[in-house]
């Protein structure tokens, strides 16, 4: 019976089993089949995965050099383009759309012998915090199927949570990797903005989006990041900064990290009391273990969510203009007298779901002349202030910790009628996207309601090495 703990263990298994990749793929295919009701996958590339597994097994047998992710099964959130495969952003508007190119991240995974096992359900165009906005149905949290897995990368989180894939890639615009990781009890990493190329990631909000990683362990996330990070000729916002060998440079021994947490974050009225007290207790644990943990004043907390929603919807309103029914994807049936404007209106009204339409409208509004300065310009100014304040914090501290989400996974349908309340669930995660720093949610806690929850750790730009090292140390202090 195959079981997966970590990529490292799996590689040992492969060294001893000449048909190891095929065994693994078969195992996962049957797990996916058994857990179909969770609705994690929109499509499983079964035949191809089996074929790749066979080829990789042969490659190993032949003694050829092996990729760093040799035989590792990876699932893709349905916003990441994989050549000659459908990609839909869980939206009707991309009905039957097949990508004609590979996302840079996918290209890099394939070059290291990874096996792409399928594509995961998500909130439509990555807009949502519960995976209830998918055109292809809700995804269930495998720990409690009456609860949401979080969003927008809900399917991807469940894929790792329920053992349906070793690794999955999601995207994180305001917490879409960290929040579902928190809800599902797995590791969820959002790298620094610009660390991983966005080429081939269907855009929600370009200056916020970043491909993120779901994994069982910090080490696995580190290894995958090492592969997919780096400069890209096709993305001018991808950084030229050298990519460290995260997997081998992870420091297990303690460096004297200085850690900050925001007073306002832990005292926020929306924060679940038990989560607050668990984190307070954990802070003491960290202090006892020799870390310096101090509270920092952060008075901009309440501006974060509005700023985030103004800027992301503005960008989204423009990014989603290309889905117009003209070139590809869904086109409405038209009446004879309908003109071009009707084609746009009908195709987009029928093709986009409610939440996506809400955000397009909001974004169009905040960019309109007459409102631009009051909303868009103002929000940009707040973003700049946040960046300045963050810079100051990292002059004194190596990391910031906070809850990942104010509550544990809520019930399906519980918040779907209240967008504002849903937006507030992002209060702790959107900060990292606004300022571009890396963040991770690590599964440290269990609530009395039976659900897991995580701790969010953030470090300064491009300091994923400290982020991952500290996270790994923290996992060893798991309550």
């Amino acid at each position: 019976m195959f079981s997966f703990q970590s990529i490292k263990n799996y590689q040992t298994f492969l060294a001893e089993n000449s048909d190891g990749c095929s065994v693994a793929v078969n195992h996962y295919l049957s797990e996916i089949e058994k857990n179909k009701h969770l609705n994690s996958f929109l499509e499983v590339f079964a035949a191809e995965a089996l074929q790749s597994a066979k080829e990789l097994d042969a490659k190993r047998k032949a003694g050829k050099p092996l990729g760093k992710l040799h035989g590792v099964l990876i699932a893709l959130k349905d916003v990441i383009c994989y050549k000659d495969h459908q990609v839909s952003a869980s939206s009707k508007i991309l009905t039957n759309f097949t990508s004609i190119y590979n996302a840079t991240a996918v290209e890099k995974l394939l070059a290291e012998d990874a096996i792409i096992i399928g594509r995961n359900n998500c909130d439509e165009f990555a807009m949502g915090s519960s995976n209830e906005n998918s055109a292809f149905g809700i995804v269930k949290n495998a720990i409690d199927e009456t609860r949401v897995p979080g969003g927008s990368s809900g399917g991807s989180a469940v894929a790792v949570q329920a053992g349906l894939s070793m690794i999955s890639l999601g995207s994180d615009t305001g917490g879409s990797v960290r929040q579902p990781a928190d809800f599902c009890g797995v590791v969820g990493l959002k790298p620094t903005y610009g660390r991983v190329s966005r080429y081939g990631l269907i855009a929600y909000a370009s200056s916020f989006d970043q491909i993120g990683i779901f994994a069982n362990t910090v080490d696995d996330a580190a290894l995958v990041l090492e592969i997919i990070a780096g400069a890209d000729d096709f993305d001018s916002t991808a950084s030229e900064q050298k990519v460290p060998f995260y997997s081998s440079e992870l420091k297990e021994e303690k460096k004297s990290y200085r850690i900050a947490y925001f007073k306002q974050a832990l005292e926020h009225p929306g924060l679940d009391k038990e989560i607050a007290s668990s984190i307070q207790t954990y802070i003491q644990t960290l202090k006892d273990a020799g870390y310096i943990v101090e509270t920092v004043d952060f008075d901009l907390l309440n501006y974060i969510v509005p700023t985030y929603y103004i800027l992301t919807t503005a960008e989204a309103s423009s990014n989603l203009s290309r889905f117009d029914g003209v070139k590809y994807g869904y086109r409405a049936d038209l009446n004879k007298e309908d003109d071009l404007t009707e084609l746009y209106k009908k195709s987009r009204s029928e093709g986009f779901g409610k939440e996506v339409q809400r955000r397009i409208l909001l974004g169009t509004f905040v960019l309109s002349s007459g409102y631009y300065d009051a909303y868009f310009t103002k929000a940009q100014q707040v973003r700049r202030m946040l960046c300045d304040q963050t810079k100051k914090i990292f002059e004194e501290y190596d990391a910031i910790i906070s809850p990942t989400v104010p509550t544990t996974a809520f019930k399906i349908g519980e918040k779907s009628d209240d967008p504002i309340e849903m937006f507030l669930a992002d209060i702790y995660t959107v900060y990292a996207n606004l300022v571009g720093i890396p963040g991770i949610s690590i599964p440290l806690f269990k609530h009395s309601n039976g659900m897991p929850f995580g701790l969010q750790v953030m470090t300064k730009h491009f300091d994923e090495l400290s982020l991952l090292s500290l996270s790994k140390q923290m996992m060893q202090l798991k309550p």
Partner: protein
Amino acid sequence: MEDKYEAVIGLEVHAQLQTASKLFCGDSIAFGAKPNSHVSPITLGHPGTLPKTNKKAVEYAIKLGLACNCEIEENNYFARKNYFYPDLPKGYQISQHTTPICKGGFVKIKTTEGERNVQLNRIHMEEDAGKSIHDRDDDYTCVDLNRAGTALVEIVTEPDLHSSDEAYQYVTELRRLVRWIDICDGNMEEGSLRCDANVSVRLKGEKKLGTKVEVKNLNSIRNVKKAIDFEIQRMINIIENGGTITQQTRSFDASNDTTFSLRDKEEANDYRYFPDPDLAPFHLTKDFINKIQSSLPTLPNQLIHQYQNEFGLSDYDAAQLCDEKHTADFFQSTIQFTQHYKAVANWITGPIRQYLNEHHLSFETILLSPKTLAELIKIVDDGKVNFSVASSHLLPLLMKENKDPLQLAEELNLLQVSDSNELEEWVNEAINKMSDKVVEYKKGKKGLIGLFVGEVKKLSKGKADPKIVTALLQEKLK
């Protein structure tokens, strides 16, 4: 009646930059390819694709800005102009509309009142849209995206032009400039240079601008002039008849030299410009700008002055040589080998250009080497071959194959004869032939000498050296 009014004209010229690839991706920009063949996923606006700025296009835009005396903006970013249209694949155009790379500046034009600077507002970069073809199919509009994403610069004047003639001069000058610095082929028929005109009229002395009309679809410089003429007259007629001008976008109809309304400009479209988050802002260093400055060729206006002042060429000759850069380059190369500037100018603007025109060739691809031309000038100057023989017999051969002109003249037996015995025979023959004219000459009609020289020329088949022949005739007819 027209004297009461003054026209105010501003021009927006779009020039396609002849970079190898598009402004934000690697697709070719070659004209005339099969529809939708230069279309990567990026041009097609496929989900997940991103733009990346073509550095060459930035360089070209700066080149033009420097050539037009603009101030170059060091901190730049691209914005998105949002609107829906089938030939705009992303639903927005990436443009610098809000923050142009080149500000201010001017273009010098010649008017009937002398030289004048036409003030520019700006030059900015943007990507071109695709083409919508409405007349191909009865039921559908066809869209060709080959052109989508091609790098453009838009050169916008202040409302600083006051007649169709000035507009004509301005576009002509601008076209020469973009060709001169080699950033655009200036071909208006193929649309690599496109012009929109904003026209309004007002009573002379009035400070306020009249309601403007934008005229599009001007696909030749002549049509720019015709459309403006038509518009000015149309507007004056409306005002004179007590009407008011409606702000409109109009199109020029080349079949009858008129304009017609495309749409009234009700509410201005809200394009919701905002900085494109897919493209990092870019900073231009002074060093980079200076490098481009020093790579610029001498511009035609400077060159014209130089040719007049240093080489003593006439206005006309200097202007002719600087009509396009390859001509000037050829002149420049030839004067490395000879100091006879005027002769070089005459050869270039006369027989050489005529030959090229007749054979549909150009100075860009000319086979005649500057050195050969210099030698040809020298043998004419030395009296070895006369000009008419050189231009009618030697030049056509030298345009096909570089040979030593003197040797060629020898081979063809075209050298001028200065041997007096041989000349004397022709002179005597001419005098004998025209004995009546000899009488007249001797009576004082000295002008007839030309007739005798001409006769000798004929008899010698052009080989007789006219100077010696003249002297000889004068001697004989004393």
